Each structure stands twice: as C-alpha cells, then as structure tokens.
C-alpha cells in the first residue's frame, strides 16, 4: 500500500496510525469531525469531493468575547425574540462539499433553522434560535467541524450595508426598452409608405417614445452626471459626446414624431444606452471574496479580555479599551493596542505588521506595539494608547488613504475623447454651414445627424470590454486586479519598487547553513533531541531540517527565555542559543539570524538562517531591468545586502532599514519627479507605500487570508509571472488603440450619410449596433489570444 492520506483533510496520514471506520486520519481532530458527521448522517460530505475538510483548531477561550451581549448585538443582522440571523465569513469554503455541509447545519443542532452559503463571498448566513443556543455556541460548532469563521473589527457594524443593485436595474430597463422599441420599429423599417403605415404609425411611434423615457431619464443618468462633472472641471471626458448624442437623439426623435416627419431614432437611442451599460456591467466584474479596501480593522479582533482591579475577567469591545486598562492576551491572539508587558512570556510575531517572520521575545516592562501576535501562552499587559492612537493604526490617518487614485488618472478613452469631441463638433458646424448655403431646409437635419452618428459608443465600449476581459483572464491566473484602471496604469509604469521580506523572499521557507567544527554523531543526536523540546520557531525550523536520528530521553532540559536552551544527557551537555549564552565571545558582527551551539562548554559552530528567495526572482529581475528602474525598499537590516547584490542585476537600488513612512516618502519623492511607480509589498507596513504608488500590488501566500489595502493582489506562486502581466497590460492598450481605429472607420462611413443629409433611421439602427458588436467581438478575441499567450 502506498502513502495513506487523511480521509478528512487529505494530509499525509502514514505515521499517525489513527484509524476509524476503516479509514485513516492524520490526527484526532479530523477523526472527531468524521465522527460528528457520521453520527448525524452527513457522510455525503465526503462523496461530493475527496478529502474536503480542514483540521479543527483549538479555540479554547478565543471566542469569549461573544459572551458580551453588546458585541453579539452588533454582529447580528436581525435579532428578534426567537429568530437571530448572522452572516459569518468562513475562509475555508472552497468546494461543493463545503456548501453542502454548511447548508445542513440544522442537522447538527436543532436550534439552527436554516443556513445559506454564498460561495463567491465565502460567507454563510445562519438563521438560528437564541433561546437555548448562542452565537458563541454556533461559532464553536463551526470551528469543531473545521469551518472556523473569521470575525474581525470590520464586521462590527453589519446589517446596515446596502447592496447597490442600480446597475442591474438600469441594464434590465434598457434591455427591456431596447427589445420592445426594436419590435415596434420593424414595420417602418420595411415599409416606407402606404395606407397601413399612415394609419397606425403614430401609435407605434408614441409607444416607442414612452419606452425611451425611462432609458433617457433613468438609465443614462450616470452619463449626464459624469459629463456635467467633466465640463465643470473643464474636462472633455468621453461622457460629454455620449451625453450630447443621447440628448440630440431624444430631442430630434421627439421633434420628428411631434411634427410627423419620421419615426425618429428611438431604437438607436435605447440600443446605444443598453450597450454602454453592458460594457459597464462587464467591467464591474469584481472578486467578491477579495477585499481591496482592507485596513487594520479587517484583522483586528472585535473583543478582548479585560482584567478589572479585582482580577475578574471580562470581555470588552476593542473600541472600549481605555488607557490604563489591564488586558489579557491569550496565545495566538492579536495585540490590538500599544501597551506595556506586565506578566508572562511575550513572544510576539510581528509578521503581520512588518512581514518579518522572526518572533521577538519581550521582557516584562517592554513596550508592545499593536498588530503583534502573541505566540507563547497568555500575557497580561497595561494599555498605553487607544486603538486609533496606536503606532500602527495611526498610519491610516495619512492623507494617501483618503485619496482616490482613479480620479487623478486620465485614462486613454478620456484623453482621446477631447480631440474626438472637438473634431465632431467642427465637422457638424462645417457641414451645417455648407447646407445653410446650399439647402437650408436640410441644415438642422444634418447637424443633428452628425451628432447622432458620431456618438462614440464604440470608443466608449473598447476599454471596458478589453480590460474587463483581461481582468477575468488575470483572475484565472491568480492575479486579481481591483478594476480596469489598474491594468491601464500598470501599462504606464516605469519604476518598480519591491519590499523584501515576504515579497521577494518566501515567508515560510528559510535556508540554513552551518559553519564551524563538525558535530559528532552523538552530538547531533543530542542537538536534535534538545530541539525537539523547544517551541521556539528557530528551534522548530532547525529541528525539521536535521536528519532523523534516535531520540534520546534527556536527563536535564532547561529553556532560558530570550537566550537559548541547555540540555544534558549522561555526561554530555549541550547549549543552543545566542552567542553570549553558549559562551562564544568573539562574535563577528553579522546581521543575520544565527543559532550557536556548544557542547560540554566547548564552542562548536553556528547555524545561520538566510531568507529564501522566491523561485525565478533572478530571471524576473533580469527581464524587468531592461525597461524599468528597480528598487528594493526593505524594513529589514542590511544583513542580506551581499546576497541580494549577487542575485539581482547591478543597477538595482537597495535600501534597508526603511520605516513605513520612509517608503511612502520615497515613492512620493519619485512621483514628484515624474516617475510612475509600481509598488509590490505584502505586510501592513507597506500599506502606506501601496496606497501612495500609482499601482500597488500585494503579494499573498493565501489570497483569502491576508493582504493590505491595494490595487491588485498577486498570488505568491505567480510572482515570477509579473513581467508577463505587465506586458499583457501593454498589449491591452494597443488592442484598445486598434479598436479606436476600427470605430473611426465606422464613424467615417456614418458621417458620410450624415453629412450628405441621407441618414435614415434604419441606417443608424444598423450601423450603431454593428459598430458596437464588432468592437466587442474584436476586443474579446484579441484579449483571449493574449490570455492564451500568458498561460
């Protein structure tokens, strides 16, 4: 038999030897989940997908804040005597089994009446009865089956959010009107005169007029507003000729039916608006499960345990924390405020803030910053500052977080629309003045016809469809851009700035090198056995790296916090830890993390931990350097400088010891001298830089869990594809330019009819949708070809 995998979660279960019901499990947690499911007739869970589960995590005390009625009240969407509704975000939702089990929660507990999953958003909406069931119990139930919900400060005002569905309404109305008007205009397309038309035409025409009213006054409202705003700030954006076209279409058509001159262009009008809205809808495609607007609130806990003067524990809301409060931070809990350590072993993981993976040990009396995660048992702290005033959260009061990048960027469509509008207006005026001399009865007809036919529907559609399609192609390749503007801006950048830790280095991997005198077999066994007892992250790393040996039972083992470990077996003793601890005095200044070893009080050597760089980084930089200025801004010390200079092209600028504000200022400085900056980072410490840059891309090992506010999220495994993504964005720009050429050809043909005064409604009705559809087809085919090249 080959390697066994866990029936529940799919992890390796060869060595665990946990068997139940003829199935192997990797741990007791997974077995327990299976037991729960089989006891409740829910084993269908495993039929839908192989090994769909996750190992349940220990959550002792973690959700105690849900005992606080005020917090629960704020999380609930609906709260009446016997009915409570809550929506929980569950990151683990990933397959149809997940949907199935979560929608059958009512079988696990009778107090749950129903639950509905939104797969795209990874949420479950649970309807339960709080009479003998609480939100805390619900969360515990979910955690016990491996679906631990993620509750953050961001959730702390749900139920008040309104979904904006106006675009769907507008699209529906425009489509409805477009279809009906098309049917109503059919008789007149084919029969120009005759008794039948003369008798019934007015009815058809006024019906069309009625249908077009909501299209003009509701569906195209956004275009009028945008055009008005553009004109107010003296900008001829693309919505100006569109709004002008819609207005002229409506007025002329109305005039035509009022004075019984013709049918008007209601069909073209509604078709135009429908296609424009369709483009908007297509571009609006967003990633429901990702959030690009996250700030610290998405990561901070809602509640925290406060210890009052009598030593009683009480769950309070994070915003209620006051200066001087005594808080209890449990293992794996996030520190929400700046504070001073009073009691306990503080091992703080600041990776969340800085992207650094090393855990920092703190002594009582030391200052702890908000955003750190406690790793080793519970600690007690005294609060120094409230949430909003803490060091990390203050970064968000910087102005860059209130600036909208889209507003300050003139996109391709708007830059071309200026010349376009001027050209159209001059053609209209020239043609009109010509006809005023030759045949003044046709002058007004020609003037309006030019404005109608030149309405830049195709131009306005080119960008949304190209970028919209590319956005989805990128999404399939795990590069998630916030919107179309991001792709356009990505094509324009000339400087790329990288963060180091977590961005160009992998978070979870380190390479370790040993320097010093060789260890004997007995010493190696002793080293491994001692490391086995330690929970320090460096010990764990080292332990996993050393080859398997027999494990000794140690006679004596002692861990000195912040220094190292000392162990004894028979006559041999070993010390592992910092240089002074093992008695090594001639420490040459190295900036890298190192673990020193001595046996029987004799110094042996050290293990040095190096960052491991992502695969293909060297190649990527070589390809990028030809076209871009490359900079590395690291919050780290200069320990890796030598390594980096070897690895990266000579031109790359390296900066170390950069604080979050420094990074932001650096980017601002370069932007002022005209650079278009792409920032690539990962931690919350990059948040300012990501917001300041023209395009901020967050690298994420797990897109569902963590990423600071940014313009795009790139899956870490696709990091070496970065160059291809930028190139694809550039190709997208040329696709759009070609579409412009195509639509100019259509416009020229249309203008011929308009200028010569022979624009019949049927010509407009054919030409306008034809140009729109062919542009859509052209851009879609081109971007798909582009996407195939990316794969």
């Amino acid at each position, binding site marked *: 038999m080959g390697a066994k995998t866990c029936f529940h979660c799919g992890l390796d279960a060869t060595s665990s030897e946990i068997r139940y019901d003829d199935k192997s499990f990797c741990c007791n947690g997974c077995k327990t989940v299976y037991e729960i499911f089989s006891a409740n*007739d829910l084993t269908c869970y495993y039929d839908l997908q192989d090994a769909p589960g996750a190992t349940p995590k220990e959550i002792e005390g973690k959700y105690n804040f849900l005992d606080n009625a005020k917090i629960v009240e704020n999380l609930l969407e609906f709260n009446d005597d016997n009915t409570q509704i809550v929506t929980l975000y569950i990151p683990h939702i990933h397959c*149809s089994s997940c949907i*199935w089990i979560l929608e059958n929660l009512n079988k696990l507990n009778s107090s749950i009446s129903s639950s509905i999953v939104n*797969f*795209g958003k990874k949420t479950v909406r649970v309807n339960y009865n709080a009479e003998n069931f609480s939100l805390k119990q619900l969360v515990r139930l979910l955690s016990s089956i491996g679906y631990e919900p993620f509750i953050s400060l961001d959730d702390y005002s749900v139920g008040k959010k309104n979904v904006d*569905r106006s675009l*769907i309404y507008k699209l529906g109305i425009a489509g*409805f009107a477009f279809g009906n008007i098309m049917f109503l205009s059919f008789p007149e397309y084919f029969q120009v005169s005759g008794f039948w038309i003369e*008798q019934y035409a007015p009815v058809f025409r006024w019906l069309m007029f009625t249908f077009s009213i909501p299209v003009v006054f509701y569906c195209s409202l956004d275009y009028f507003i945008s055009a008005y705003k553009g004109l107010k700030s003296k900008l001829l954006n693309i919505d100006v000729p569109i709004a002008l076209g819609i207005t002229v279409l409506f007025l002329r058509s109305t005039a035509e039916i009022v004075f019984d001159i013709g049918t008007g262009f209601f069909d073209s009008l509604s078709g135009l608006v429908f296609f424009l809205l369709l483009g908007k809808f297509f571009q609006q495609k967003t990633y429901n499960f990702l959030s690009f607007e996250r700030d610290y609130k998405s990561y901070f806990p809602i509640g925290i345990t406060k210890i009052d003067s009598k030593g009683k524990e009480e769950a309070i809301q994070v915003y209620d924390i006051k200066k001087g409060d005594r808080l209890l931070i449990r293992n794996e809990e996030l520190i929400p405020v700046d504070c001073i350590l009073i009691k306990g072993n503080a091992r703080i993981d600041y990776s969340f803030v800085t992207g650094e993976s090393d855990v920092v040990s703190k002594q009582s009396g030391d200052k702890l910053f908000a955003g750190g995660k406690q790793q080793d048992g519970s600690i007690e702290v005294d609060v120094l500052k409230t949430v909003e005033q803490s060091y990390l959260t203050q970064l968000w009061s910087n102005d860059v977080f209130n600036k909208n990048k889209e507003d300050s960027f003139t996109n391709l469509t708007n830059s071309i629309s200026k010349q376009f509008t001027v050209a159209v207006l001059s053609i209209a005026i020239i043609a009109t003045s010509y006809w005023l001399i030759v045949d003044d009865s046709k002058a007004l007809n020609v003037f309006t016809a030019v404005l109608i036919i030149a309405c830049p529907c195709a131009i306005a559609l080119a960008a949304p469809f190209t970028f919209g399609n590319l956005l989805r192609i990128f999404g399939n390749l795990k590069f998630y851009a916030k919107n179309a503007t991001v792709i356009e801006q990505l094509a324009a950048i000339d400087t790329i700035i990288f963060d180091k830790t977590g961005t160009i280095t992998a978070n979870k991997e380190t390479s370790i090198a040993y320097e010093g005198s060789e260890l004997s077999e007995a010493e190696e066994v002793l080293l491994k056995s001692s490391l086995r007892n330690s929970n320090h992250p460096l010990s764990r790393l080292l332990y996993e790296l050393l080859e398997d040996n027999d494990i000794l039972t140690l006679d004596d083992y002692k861990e000195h916090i912040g220094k190292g470990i000392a162990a004894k077996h028979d006559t041999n003793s070993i010390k592992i830890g910092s240089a002074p601890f093992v008695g090594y005095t001639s420490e040459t200044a190295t900036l890298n993390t190192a673990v020193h070893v001595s046996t029987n009080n004799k110094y042996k050597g050290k293990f040095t931990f190096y960052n491991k760089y992502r695969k293909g980084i060297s190649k990527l930089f070589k390809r990028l350097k030809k076209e871009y200025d490359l900079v590395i801004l690291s919050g780290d010390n200069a320990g890796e400088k030598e390594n980096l200079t070897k690895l990266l092209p000579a031109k790359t600028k390296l900066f170390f010891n950069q604080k979050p504000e420094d990074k932001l200022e650096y980017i601002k400085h370069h932007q002022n001298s005209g650079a278009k900056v792409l920032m690539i980072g990962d931690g919350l410490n990059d948040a300012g830089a990501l917001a300041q840059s023209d395009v901020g891309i967050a690298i994420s090992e797990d897109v569902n869990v963590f990423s600071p506010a940014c313009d795009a999220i790139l899956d870490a495994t696709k990091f070496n594809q970065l160059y291809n993504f930028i190139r694809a964005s550039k190709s997208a720009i040329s696709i759009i330019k070609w579409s412009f050429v195509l639509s100019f050809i259509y416009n020229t043909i249309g203008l011929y009819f308009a200028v010569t005064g022979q624009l019949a409604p049927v010509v407009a009705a054919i030409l306008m949708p034809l140009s729109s559809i062919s542009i859509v087809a052209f851009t879609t085919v081109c971007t798909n070809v582009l996407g195939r090249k990316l794969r």
Partner: protein
Amino acid sequence: MSVIYILLAVSILVAVAFFVVFVIAVKRGQFDDSYTPSVRMLFEDELIKDKTNKTILTKKE
C-alpha cells in the same frame, strides 16, 4: 385591422409582466450570488436519499 390595438396592448402587458418579475427578482437578491445556487441545485437528491436511508433503518430496528 383595429385588432392591432388589442395585440399591441397584450404584447406590452406580457412584456411589462416579465419586467415586473425581473424587478422583484433583483429586489430579492437573486442576482447577488450567481454561483452557489447552481451547486445547491444538485444537492436536493442527496438530501432525500439520506432521509429515506434513515427511515429504512428505523423500520428494521
């Protein structure tokens, strides 16, 4: 030929009826999640199978 008025009225009534249904559907949030329902639809069978299994078992006991 005046039957055309009736035909027009009927066709528009039908169209408006569909339109109203559409608006109600949007309002109820049926367009908010376009993926999960397609999966959920396939589950009904398994649920029923589960229940019948259960009844057979209880009968045997």
